């Protein structure tokens, strides 16, 4: 860490008082930089030369953020990028946006009461801005169809050799769905509470772009509706916060893309399946011996939550 701090101090031409580790994403080491003058920045980097199977390289992540920001979507400003040896890794420094990311606080604390009432609309509108990003500057980003996503997901799932009847059923169900053909858009890929920075008055920023790709606009909306991120408010489909109608109103206020609820159902079911398989990935990272982690071991037993959600959707057509 000392080398890394020195590297950052040299690059920023400022002394750092403290580097505070933050919870990482799928393949990111994230630190809050507290400068001598008490200003703060965030550094995100990947340390391993081996890229996660799902995450985009940090350099591309920074590029996406720059482009999205230039289109007026709420995204932190990139200060500088780096690509160094394996001790320092590849990454970027960005501005630290003040606000809250912890979903339970945003959903329950009194001080967020006012912002909560307009947040679904704002989130919908910001998502529409992201989806309007011109793709000609993002040709180095993978384009993924629904069929390819399913195939990839099945490959990951089957690599664990722990067959799950409910997941098999969900794959069959998804294979038979008719998808509306939308023009490709920039998909955030992990668009949910936890990756939104909220102040008492606004949606300040959308962070964690490591799963971004080109694809179907309904994917981000379906993912946001997955029951695993409603934090106890199960009847509020949009992240435990609001109703889907408010989100759609915000989205359609600036977008010509017309949202079809039946398509969101399909992508929500896909999202629950995807989250279930990510839980398996985490658990098997522990079980394989590559990381010894009680958090990763414990998340293996959250697979059943996604199975429960999948069966409620399939058996009862219940997406709440």
């Amino acid at each position: 860490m000392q080398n890394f701090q020195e590297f950052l101090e040299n690059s920023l031409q400022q002394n750092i008082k403290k580097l505070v580790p933050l919870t990482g994403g799928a393949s990111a080491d994230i630190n809050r930089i507290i400068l001598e003058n008490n200003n703060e920045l965030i550094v995100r980097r990947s340390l391993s030369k081996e890229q996660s199977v799902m995450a985009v390289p940090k350099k591309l992540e920074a590029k996406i953020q720059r482009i999205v920001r230039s289109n007026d979507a709420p995204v932190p400003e990139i200060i500088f990028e780096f690509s160094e040896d394996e001790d320092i890794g590849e990454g970027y420094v960005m501005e630290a946006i003040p606000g809250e990311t912890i979903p339970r606080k945003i959903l329950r604390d009194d001080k967020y009461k006012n912002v909560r009432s307009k947040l679904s609309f704002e989130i919908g509108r910001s998502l529409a801005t992201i989806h309007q990003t011109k793709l000609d500057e993002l040709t180095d980003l993978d384009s993924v169809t629904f069929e390819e996503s399913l195939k990839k997901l099945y490959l990951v799932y089957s690599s664990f050799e722990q067959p799950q009847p409910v997941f098999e059923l969900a794959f069959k169900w998804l294979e038979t769905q008719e998808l509306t053909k939308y023009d490709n858009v920039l998909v955030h890929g992990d668009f949910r509470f936890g990756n939104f920075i909220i102040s008492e008055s606004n949606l300040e920023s959308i962070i964690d772009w490591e799963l971004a790709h080109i694809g179907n606009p309904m994917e981000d909306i379906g993912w946001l509706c997955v029951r695993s991120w409603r934090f106890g408010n199960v009847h509020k489909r949009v992240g435990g916060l609001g109703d889907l109608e408010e989100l759609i109103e915000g989205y359609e206020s600036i977008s010509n893309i017309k949202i079809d609820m039946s398509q969101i159902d399909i992508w929500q079911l896909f999202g629950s399946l995807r989250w279930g398989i990510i839980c398996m990935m985490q658990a098997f990272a522990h079980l394989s011996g590559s990381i010894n982690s009680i958090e990763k071991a414990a998340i293996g037993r959250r697979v059943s939550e996604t199975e429960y959600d999948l069966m409620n959707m399939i058996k009862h057509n219940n997406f709440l």
Partner: protein
Amino acid sequence: MTIFDRPSSSELLKAVIDFIDAETKSDDYPANKRFKLQIVSNVLNIVKREIDLGKKINDDFKHLGAKLIKDKDFSISKLADKIKNNEIDVSDQNIIDFLYDLTEKKIDIDNPKYKKN
């Protein structure tokens, strides 16, 4: 039948869980360590519920599953393979009901609070 004395494994786990829960609730316990210890408590609760209820659930589903796929050596893997290979009709309500009940029982062990109200 067990040759081991009380406290039983479940009772021992309960004592550990109660100890951890009391520690994490005390004001002088460091907040940054509390979250991790709560995960430990959650994991031990899963183990305890599985010790208490798991055998009966396994036996029940082995019996029901054997009838469903007409194979006395039923296993979860076999059922998954049959769905994958289209050897059973996934629109059959009995299959859907079986899988729904199975997930409910798994949730009863893994996280009972997750069930819908």
